[in-house]
């Protein structure tokens, strides 16, 4: 016996879902339609499935260059954020040294910063370092902005780790640095995965920093590429939609698979089921 309340609940949920899924399905299907059909039935099922638009995009080496650039930038950002953030957090969690509290609060300033506020001097800094138009011009600022929250999470996690392990290792002559790399890091996979996923999503989707730092088309990330594509083929929505679908598909699959970690990163705690 299903109650009316339950029916109402499911109906509401289905309605909201349709608001989300209809634009997305129109995007994916749009790439299979001709420009003419786009006008007649923008949201419907394609009358005739044409694959040329998708095939052309997937054969375009430029498309793969964009994806490759985004991947390189995202992976290096993740790697550097994890290594620098976890090292600093370990020091803050393990050692009581002069100025530790001050330095920690200093880093946490990064949490209340509207990141775009300093974008012009940041652009000049990157320019004067000679890394404008290179992946590093995007990577290093991203790492710097990701450090605050990652250090906060790492520190909380490291503080909860039992001390006994370290004491046992010390007796065997293992120092702090070796212990960190041999035991602490391998035992921290949940928090590493959380922060890695979170940083990766941010970097993969970033638009403002690449827009400011990258000028050369061959160095473009996919977000810049998508905007470029839109400008170039403004008359042909099916092309832009196919491009967007082709870039979103792998990302969305990855993000949904890793959603547990993204949410844990957002809420600072575990989410069930």
């Amino acid at each position: 016996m299903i109650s009316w309340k339950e029916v109402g609940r499911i109906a509401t949920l289905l309605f909201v879902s349709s608001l989300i899924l209809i634009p997305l399905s129109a995007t994916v299907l749009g790439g299979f339609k001709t420009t003419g059909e786009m006008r007649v039935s923008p949201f419907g099922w394609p009358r005739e499935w044409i694959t040329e638009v998708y095939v052309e995009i997937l054969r375009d080496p430029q498309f793969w260059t964009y994806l490759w650039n985004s991947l390189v930038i995202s992976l290096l950002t993740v790697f550097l954020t994890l290594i620098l953030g976890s090292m600093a957090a370990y020091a803050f969690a393990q050692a009581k040294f002069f100025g530790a509290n001050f330095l920690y609060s200093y880093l946490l300033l990064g949490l209340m910063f509207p990141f775009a506020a300093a974008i012009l001097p940041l652009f000049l800094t990157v320019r004067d370092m000679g890394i404008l138009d290179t992946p590093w011009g995007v990577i290093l600022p991203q790492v710097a902005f990701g450090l605050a929250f990652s250090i906060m999470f790492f520190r909380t996690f490291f503080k909860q780790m039992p001390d006994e392990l370290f004491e046992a290792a010390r007796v065997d002559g293992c120092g702090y640095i070796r212990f960190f790399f041999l035991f602490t890091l391998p035992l921290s996979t949940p928090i590493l995965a959380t922060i890695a996923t979170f940083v990766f999503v941010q970097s993969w989707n970033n638009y403002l920093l690449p827009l400011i730092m990258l000028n050369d088309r061959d160095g473009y990330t996919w977000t810049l590429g998508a905007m470029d594509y839109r400008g170039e083929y403004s008359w042909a929505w099916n092309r832009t939609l196919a491009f967007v679908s082709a870039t979103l598909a792998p990302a969305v699959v990855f993000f949904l698979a890793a959603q547990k970690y993204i949410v844990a990163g957002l809420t600072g705690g575990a989410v069930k089921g």
Partner: protein
Amino acid sequence: MLVSEGVAAAPPRESAFQRMMANGQLKMVLIFVPPAILIFTVFVILPMIQAGLFSPYKWSGYGPVPWALNEDTGRTFGRWIGTTNFERMMSHSAFKQSLVNTLLVIGVSIAIQLPLAMTLALMIYRSSRINTVFRLIFFLPYVMAEVATGLIFSFVLDGNYGLSRSFADLMGWEKAFFPLAEKPWAFYCILGVIVWKYFGFHMMIFIAGLQSISSEVLEAAKIDGAKTLQSVFLIKLPLLWPSITISVFYAVLGGLQVFDLVMPMTAGGPSNSSHTLVSYLYNFGFIRLNIGFGSAVGVFLFVVGVAFAFLYRNTVQRGQ
């Protein structure tokens, strides 16, 4: 004997320091902490300080700093103009509009998006297979890039295609309606897309909060005869207060930084009516290489953001 005891009771700080030296802690700190501090200082703190220092200048960004002497011209690279940048900004109609728009984003996020997210969270926070599917669907817009979302909706709202076209046909209008090119509508569309994109994010925060409410409390309320709405308003919402404050914090700080969605949808147009603070900064500071002016806008953004964060942490979020 007395002497050796005196040595053992050396000043505590020195002995702590010596102990750190001896067991390798100091070495670890000296290797582990500086890289993070360095990169954070160079790419976050120094640029913000520079924004403050550049804001009283008229400067195109040519040369190292605006107050350095350009030996070719015999003058400094930039020109000191005092508070002119701030005055120009405050009296610029596009800036006022971008400020109004940013406040609208924050208002809509708090007044429409959060209640919507809460309603949905209450509907699907219990663990069941069907709820997990809905959670995934509602979370989908959040993980999509803003640029992709913006492109999709500029298609949906394109007067010749998409939803706008179907709507115009339905109403029997002769002429196509381009909401993204019409003055008040352009930004309302952006507001709608912001709700579409971020409600799942807030919903997830609320779900995490709801799942941490102990079931005994709810059971007890049920036994005492609490109705559904009573248990929502008298038990769940008060217990969710920490989650709500986090959500509001993100809504405000995120609202201050909306940019990526604006660019593909309207790029600030028509006639600068749909700028946010950041797209205004980008357009009038970066595009026109007006470093001093852009820095002034940046300082404004910084002061608003930090003032809010500071006040919020010390009032609403106090003790959490």
